[in-house]
């Protein structure tokens, strides 16, 4: 009687495939996290971004109405309320000469961006104005993509400001697009000052969650509404004096060495349209 060997061969092939793919994935992770080899993976990402970004922009123009349809279906109640409000506003605006809401908002956003240029720390820096083209595609990172990259003078580490204050930092920069890690991302840590030169660290938690202010001794006076600005320390990651966040709550736990403080970003991170990347070479 002949013995069939198909099952053991298939099991070996299955296991081999799994082992090879897992090892390949682990190798890629290891390479991308090490110094030299990360240049290679960064180059691959850059090429992919150059190919994908124009394609995505084109497709987005077609698929945008579909996305908005589903978004409206998910938030139907809120959309209805907003429609009622908008109808009332449209009725009030009739007879006036006015540009569209989107154009007005963008204009005022740009105006507020220009106001930031008057800050002493920023007046000497080169700024690159960029438009936000997309939000992050991951639920585990809070980033946005902007339409300026290395070819436009934007580099990794450059601070990014939006209307009102600091928005984040460039973490990936390709030829024509860059990725901005927002203040609210869990990896964001910014040295800040407040009051009479008190120093602290502003830590992001996650999108939609308040920022945490760490390393503030219990005896330090802090009040709700106080504005936190970049300290310029932290190895010169950010120029000093940029408004970052406003304190929203202060709690002193009996026996604890530090205060528990939360803050919210001054810049409106939910409605970013235009930002400025600051060409910043650190504390040199």
């Amino acid at each position, binding site marked *: 009687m002949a013995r069939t060997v198909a099952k053991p061969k298939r099991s070996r*092939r*299955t296991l081999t*495939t*799994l082992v090879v*793919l*897992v090892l*390949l*994935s*682990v*190798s*890629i*992770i290891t*390479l*991308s*996290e090490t110094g030299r080899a990360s240049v290679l*993976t960064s180059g*691959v*990402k850059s090429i*992919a*971004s150059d190919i*994908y970004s124009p*394609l*995505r922009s084109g*497709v*987005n123009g077609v*698929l*945008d109405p*579909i*996305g*908005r349809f*589903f*978004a409206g279906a*998910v938030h139907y109640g809120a959309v209805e309320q907003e429609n009622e409000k908008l109808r009332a506003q449209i009725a009030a605006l009739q007879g006036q000469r006015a540009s569209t809401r989107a154009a007005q908002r963008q204009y005022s956003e740009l105006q507020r961006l220009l106001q930031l240029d008057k800050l002493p720390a920023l007046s000497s820096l080169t700024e690159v104005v960029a438009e936000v083209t*997309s*939000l*992050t*595609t*991951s*639920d*585990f*990172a809070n*980033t946005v993509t902007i339409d300026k990259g290395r070819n436009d003078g934007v580099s990794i580490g450059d601070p990014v400001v939006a209307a009102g204050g600091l928005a984040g930092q460039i*973490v*990936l920069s390709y030829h024509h697009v860059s*990725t901005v*890690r927002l203040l609210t*991302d*869990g*990896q964001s840590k910014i040295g800040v000052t407040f009051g009479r030169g008190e120093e602290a660290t502003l830590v*992001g*938690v*996650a*999108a*939609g*969650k308040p920022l945490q202010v760490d390393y503030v001794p219990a005896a330090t006076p802090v009040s709700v509404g106080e504005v936190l600005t970049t300290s310029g320390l932290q190895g010169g990651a950010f120029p000093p004096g940029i408004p970052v966040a406003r304190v929203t709550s202060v709690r002193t736990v009996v026996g604890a060495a530090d205060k528990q403080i939360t803050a919210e970003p001054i810049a409106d991170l939910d409605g970013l349209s235009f930002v400025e990347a600051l060409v910043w070479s650190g504390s040199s």
Partner: protein
Amino acid sequence: MTARVTIRTLVVVALALLVQSTVMLDIRVAGVSPDVMVVLPVAAGLVAGPVEGAAVGFVAGIAADLLLPTPFGLSALVGTLVGFSVGALTGEAVRYVRGFATLVALVASAASVMLYAVLGAVLGEAQFLRVDLGAVIVVVSVANALLAGPSVRVARWALVPPSEHVQAAGRR
């Protein structure tokens, strides 16, 4: 994998990536977007078995990681493990049990999100465990459960040769 299967798989992954970075970003529930890149290896594993599930998971993960600021290769690792596991544990049940694909997509997507968060934390991305993981798991799982049916059909088109379609029809 034949050339036909490879090309069709790459087309499906590319289209899924486009849909994920356009339509899906507009749909946010509790601040969380669905993730269609997670359902691809699940559908591939259900339809074609563990090898194809792992391969599609790897390719889909690499494609997703090209656009993410998170560790490059992490999505590929998770996709490989999830696709393989689904293929190895489910057999042919998707053809004969109603609602099976939906249930598997629900459970596998939840496992995929948790695995991604844990492995990411192990790799130094501690903030992965500080996001609202419950909301991410629920939104991604439910969305993928709803997409399970169409995903299985697309995976069958990409991965199963026409002759096997005929054989399956004959068996029924």
